[in-house]
């Protein structure tokens, strides 16, 4: 309403070129003693923005710029930091850096031993967490009703996800290292990581399952299938991609965590074989192992005389690993979305 009445006022002077023009026009028309209305409608563009519209557009543009700047301020530092790390690490990056073991009190050599340690930690923790997490997601989406019990379970998942990583570490010390008698070992560290991974897998499984249309289930039930048969033959196969995405995403998180394994199984340094078959299986389940994230922390803060290049190289390999695995997960999701049938 106000926009229209604005446009019909003849004396909106000094608010911009169009308004000024309108003012001048009406003056001119008045002095020529002609029909004011006729002159105005002839010479004015009826689609010219009113003052209110202009103000709105200015606000819109300002908001767009400011918010865009916010987004830029969030993305740019990350990209700059990544670039800087790669540039600093460039001289050491290479196959030998990855395949060699740390040498001379970790001041030389590569990162093979911690890399293998991280790999085993992640694999074992996934083997433990994936079945429980996926079935937990199945429960929340397929079995749980809409009642307070489900709400408590969901709240439990949220809270488990929100427990600080160092508190997970303390739990690992109490439950796995001491109570279960595993000692400070790779197994205890993997169990701790598994508990930490659980909520993420549950949440992503639940989301993946909820995207399967209800009609699929109903059709299956109508054929006389039981609940579990429906889940096994219809729901899970149709959501396997989404579940996989969540599990892969969890890999990156488990690989990067340091605090939970700090006191449950990761050690500063462990001598492992340099060559041969043994170098692929250097650790015992009952012993501590090195881990890439822990290695980076050690190199940066605990060891004296490590060249910057080795530190930056370790950081870049760790980021590279997580980002690469994550990209696989994102690519998989995009691919699955593109060929979704319903």
């Amino acid at each position, binding site marked *: 309403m106000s926009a229209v009445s604005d446009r019909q006022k003849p004396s909106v002077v000094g608010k911009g070129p169009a308004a000024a023009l309108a003012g001048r026009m009406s003056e001119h028309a008045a002095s020529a003693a002609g029909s004011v209305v006729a002159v105005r409608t002839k010479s004015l563009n009826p689609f010219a923005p009113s003052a209110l519209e202009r103000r709105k557009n200015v606000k819109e543009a300002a908001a767009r710029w400011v918010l865009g700047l916010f987004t830029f301020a969030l993305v740019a530092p990350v990209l700059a930091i990544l670039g800087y790390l790669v540039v600093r690490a460039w001289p050491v990056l290479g196959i030998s850096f990855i395949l060699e073991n740390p040498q001379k009190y970790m001041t030389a050599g590569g990162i093979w031993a911690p890399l293998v340690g991280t790999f085993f930690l992640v694999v074992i923790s996934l083997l433990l967490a994936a079945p429980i997490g996926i079935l937990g997601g199945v429960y929340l989406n397929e079995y749980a009703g809409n009642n307070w019990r489900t709400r408590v379970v969901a709240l439990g998942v949220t809270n488990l996800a929100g427990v600080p990583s160092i*508190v997970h570490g303390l739990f690992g010390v109490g439950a796995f290292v001491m109570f279960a008698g595993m000692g400070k070992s790779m197994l205890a560290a993997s169990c701790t990581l598994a508990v930490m991974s659980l909520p993420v897998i549950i949440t992503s499984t639940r989301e993946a399952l909820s995207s399967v249309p209800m009609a699929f289930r109903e059709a299956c039930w109508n054929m006389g299938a039981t609940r579990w048969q429906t889940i096994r033959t219809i729901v899970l196969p149709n959501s396997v991609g989404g579940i996989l995405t969540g599990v892969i995403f969890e890999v990156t998180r488990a690989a990067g965590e340091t605090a939970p394994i700090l006191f449950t199984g990761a050690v500063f340094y462990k001598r492992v074989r340099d060559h041969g078959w043994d170098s692929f299986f250097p650790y015992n389940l009952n012993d501590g192992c090195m881990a890439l994230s822990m290695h980076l922390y050690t190199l940066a803060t605990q060891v004296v005389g490590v060249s910057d290049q080795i530190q930056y190289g370790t950081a870049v390999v760790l980021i590279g690993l997580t980002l690469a695995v994550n990209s696989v997960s994102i690519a998989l999701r995009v691919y699955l979305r593109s060929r979704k049938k319903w």
Partner: protein
Amino acid sequence: MTTATANRRTWRSLLHGLADWSEPVVEWAIRLCGWSSILFVFSIFVFILVIAAGAFGRLDWGEFLFSAEWQPDSVVQPRYGTLALLVGTLSVTALAMLLAAPLGLGAAVFISEFCSGKVKETLKVLVELSAAIPSVVWGFVGYMVLAPLIIRYTDAASGVNLLNAGLILALMSVPIIVSMSEDALKAVPDSYREAALSLGASRWEIVYRVLFPAAKNGLLAAVLLGVGRAIGETMAVLMCTGHAVRIPHSLLTPVRTLTATIASELGESPVGEMHYCVLFTIGLELFAITFLVNVIADFVVKGIRSERS
């Protein structure tokens, strides 16, 4: 009837019998897995409480909560005041949220309301990838890259301080806030936007007058979850805060947080001793704080859900 088909029939009936029998077993397994998260939250609390309880009898609670003197290694009279650590945690979190909350909300609005198509997808992927950077790498960046910069551009004695940790923590928690608040904005029905558009509202007017009020609770919950994450963050603050147990008086003061104290001292304290148990008590304190923040965030979101339905 050949023996082969007969065999097949017996097998099939056996399998059917197995299916009848296995269904309840599988259902119970699924139920157990569903309840496992509650079980784990509960057992985290219990296991930490059991070890922390070793200190309860001897711990002066007034000192623990309200004294800033943390001298656990003193032979004469060890002191276990965690006030400075708590203030350290809160100040780092507050600084990080002061930066991350507006930045995250703004970026979420920009990505979900002002962008579309390729740009939107790219930005979302970038945000997701930056959420995947491990905290120890952020700590490394603060320690190796940001600290020298802070020394160069300010007159700080040490580059690892409140400012450093706050900046790093802000960068870390922004992706979480962005993706959570984007979800909250997405949850607002499109009909709201269409109604506003048909009245001639611009995008910013839609955001400001329609989306913010409608998604208020979701956005608040996003910030709260960011707060919870920042309070619990360990490795980054361990490397960036500078390890000085004192109540900060300026941005350039080195501080120490609850999490960093556990991470740096647990390895050196003898198992079962007073110091060890007090560290678990701090763990309990952290657990309680984050539990509270998460529950509040959940109730904030739940409010919006019950309104809708």
